[in-house]
């Protein structure tokens, strides 16, 4: 039970620190962008441009929500 609690705490810390942070939607957008890139590459499309666009879009949207929350 103690080992399970410790593992759960470590995994939660890991996911929050390195993956989701304070806005899980950015990580979700990155995941969706990577899936879409994979799909496009499999279909023979040059998809290098997709991730930079997803990254900027997700960041702008996350920052806008953060400013609204501050207000």
């Amino acid at each position, binding site marked *: 039970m103690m080992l399970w609690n410790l593992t759960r705490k470590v995994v939660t810390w890991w996911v929050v620190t390195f993956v989701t942070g304070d806005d899980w939607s950015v990580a979700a957008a990155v995941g969706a962008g990577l899936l879409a890139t994979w799909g496009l*590459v499999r279909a023979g499309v040059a998809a290098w441009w997709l991730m930079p666009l997803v990254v900027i879009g997700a*960041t702008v949207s996350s920052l806008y929500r953060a400013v*609204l929350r501050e207000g």
Partner: protein
Amino acid sequence: MNTPVLISTFLAASIEVIEMVAIVVAVGVTRQWRGALAGTLAGLMVLAVLVAGLGTALQRVPLSPIRVVVGALLLTFGLQWVRKGVLRVSRDGWTIGVGEQQVEEGVGSGFDWTGFLLAFRGVSLEGLEVAVIVVAFGAADHAIGSAAIGAAASVLLVGALGAASYRVVARIPRRALQLFVGALLTTFGTFWAAEGLGADWPGDDLALLWLVGFYVTAALALVRVVSYWRRGTLRRLRAAEPLTEGAPR
């Protein structure tokens, strides 16, 4: 020697090392230097073992899947730093350092175990992020040696600065550094993740240069945009105040 990996890990590690040094100096000054330095050494040894173990294990895994996983990890982690950097720089400006650390004072004449534990905890917790970055960069380009040297150089340089004068370290504008290094991590993350999935970058490795330029420019533009949004939000709130004050309850 892989210079881009070395420079990137040096810069990324510096962000966390500044906090490590701040904690160790605070413990050393307010409690006892012997305990603080022993805790620091113990923390650094744990991190070295972690990097050596994980780094060696990941050297045997094929490059493409590692690049996808590590790239996605660097991307989400780097974007957190970009977001924090943009929000803080747009609110506090470019020149804010790490600030003073608060540590409880008062210690006897023997070995300071509380100081040891405080320094150990600070170094190992802040250093865990450094270890992950070192392992990620090292594994994704099969350059664990360059990544480890970059991080070690950062610990030595910022540590020496902290030993000479903590005020120098406290004045390093950590938030601004966080924003630029976040853009750098995001660049490597985007590049490696897309490459691992089979996408071909125009200009191959040179794409790293225009990609970092693109992300840094976007981050700088976002600092201005977020400042503008904040002013707009404040204006709307101020305009709404008289109405809500006079409203019946």
